[in-house]
């Protein structure tokens, strides 16, 4: 959906970030850079929970008085519903904080246009295999603490099954709740398996933890940017052929999903007013 240019507004992309892994925040800056190049906003900034600038510092980043906030998160949950509103002092979809008006959009991961990104990524990592002989696994963190954290992935599974992508089997799997990604070979019903991590960055979880769970790494390795080769797909193990992609958030087109969320916010705003 095209977005109306906002030459007097700022865009604030909110991410998690990490004090341990420098690759964690790379996609957020890439998305900001991509959107900045399109000249749609006066300013585009990022802020984080675990890196600088912090969310509490975000107010000082810009002198724009109209600010769109898009959580670059993959699901609705504790961070998007509790932490970000608290840190930015937001009380509703639109909140004025000390003279600056913030519009709080939904996180990127829950937008329907994510489906196209997952399918594109799955095709990129395994371009020559027949979906009819392939299981597509979308994997996330999962936590018993918040059911919403897996909803975005389950929604995508349903959308892909309903699409004409043609995968023999599509399923979700998680690091910390059932079905476990460590049992990917039991979840797969076909000889070929494509695993797409539903994370924003190739940080600790998707690049270092999950490969160990899949069995393609013996132990947690160095950060992605510290390696010369990203992955050696495919992997022949557990009597299957496994393709493991980079995180969905590293897809350049995620910038479009950020803009889609803003367009949807504006549409809703019109409806509300």
């Amino acid at each position, binding site marked *: 959906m095209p977005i109306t240019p906002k030459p007097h507004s700022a865009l604030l992309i909110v991410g998690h970030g*990490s*004090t*341990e*892994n*420098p690759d964690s925040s790379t996609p957020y*800056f890439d998305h900001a*850079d991509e959107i900045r190049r399109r000249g749609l906003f006066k300013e585009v*900034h990022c802020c984080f929970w*675990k*890196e*600088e*600038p*912090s969310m*509490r*510092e*975000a107010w*000082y*980043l*810009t*002198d724009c008085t109209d600010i769109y906030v898009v959580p670059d998160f993959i699901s609705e949950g*504790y961070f998007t519903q509790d*932490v970000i509103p*608290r*840190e930015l002092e937001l009380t509703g979809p639109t909140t004025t904080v*000390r003279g600056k008006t913030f519009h709080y959009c939904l996180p990127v991961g829950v937008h329907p246009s994510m489906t196209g990104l997952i399918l594109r990524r799955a095709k990129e990592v395994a371009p020559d295999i027949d979906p009819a002989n392939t299981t597509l696994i979308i994997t996330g963190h999962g936590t018993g603490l918040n059911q919403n954290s897996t909803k975005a992935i389950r929604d995508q599974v349903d959308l892909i099954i309903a699409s004409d992508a043609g995968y023999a089997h599509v399923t979700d799997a998680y690091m910390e709740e059932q079905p476990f990604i460590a049992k990917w070979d039991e979840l797969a019903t076909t000889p070929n398996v494509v695993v797409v991590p539903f994370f924003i960055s190739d940080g600790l979880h998707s690049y270092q933890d999950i490969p160990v769970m899949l069995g393609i790494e013996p132990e947690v390795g160095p950060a992605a940017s510290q390696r010369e080769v990203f992955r050696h797909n495919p992997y022949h193990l557990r009597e299957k052929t496994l393709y493991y992609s980079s995180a969905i958030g590293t897809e350049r087109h995620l910038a479009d999903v950020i803009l889609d969320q803003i367009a949807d916010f504006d549409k809703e705003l019109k409806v509300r007013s």
Partner: protein
Amino acid sequence: MSPTTFLEQSLANGIHRIGQIEVRATGSGFQLFHADDLALVDQPDHGLTVHHDPEVARDISTYSEDGTYRFTKGQTNLKRGWIMILDSIDDTRRALDHFYPAALGLVAAQRDGTLQIETLREKLNRQTGMYRFARNISDAGAQQLVQEVCGPAHQCAKWILWKLDAETPLDDSEASRFRGIPGNLPESEAIPLVCREACNHFVAECRKVSKAEHAAANPGG
């Protein structure tokens, strides 16, 4: 005042340094480079890598020379050997926001009297997950930690503005006295780096101390 206007006015008033970065207005644009490369810059074969894209500032500032991840950008281990030649004040401000996130806006707000400072207790009480335990650190433990983690002796160039809580200032030390300007420049020549809230590295260290204090008080487990 907007961060960009603040930068513009500061440069016009003779400011030429922020953190470890020398900032120069050249008439046709701006130059940024590591202050320790000042002697090299004007030599014809300075050997510095030239960049024109402000976004490169993020790459330059991510790792120190020895490959350590600079998770706190106030660290005084910025890489040398580069120069950024930028066309506009907006690009210069963007590059500086990568080198020192939000630093210009924070100081501008401090000068305007609008900067909201967050005490350590407020920061710790908002932590979640495994960092929730950090809030149990004693005042004495936190005071000690400031002297062991903060300040130029520990590679941080920021001026600590926060207190432990509204009533408890930091104990006097090199770290608490430091005013955010490395390199002994006068305040008339540099924009200080300010610390309006304890960084996440400090929070992680608070958690460690808090756990150690708990273990010491409960030797049986």
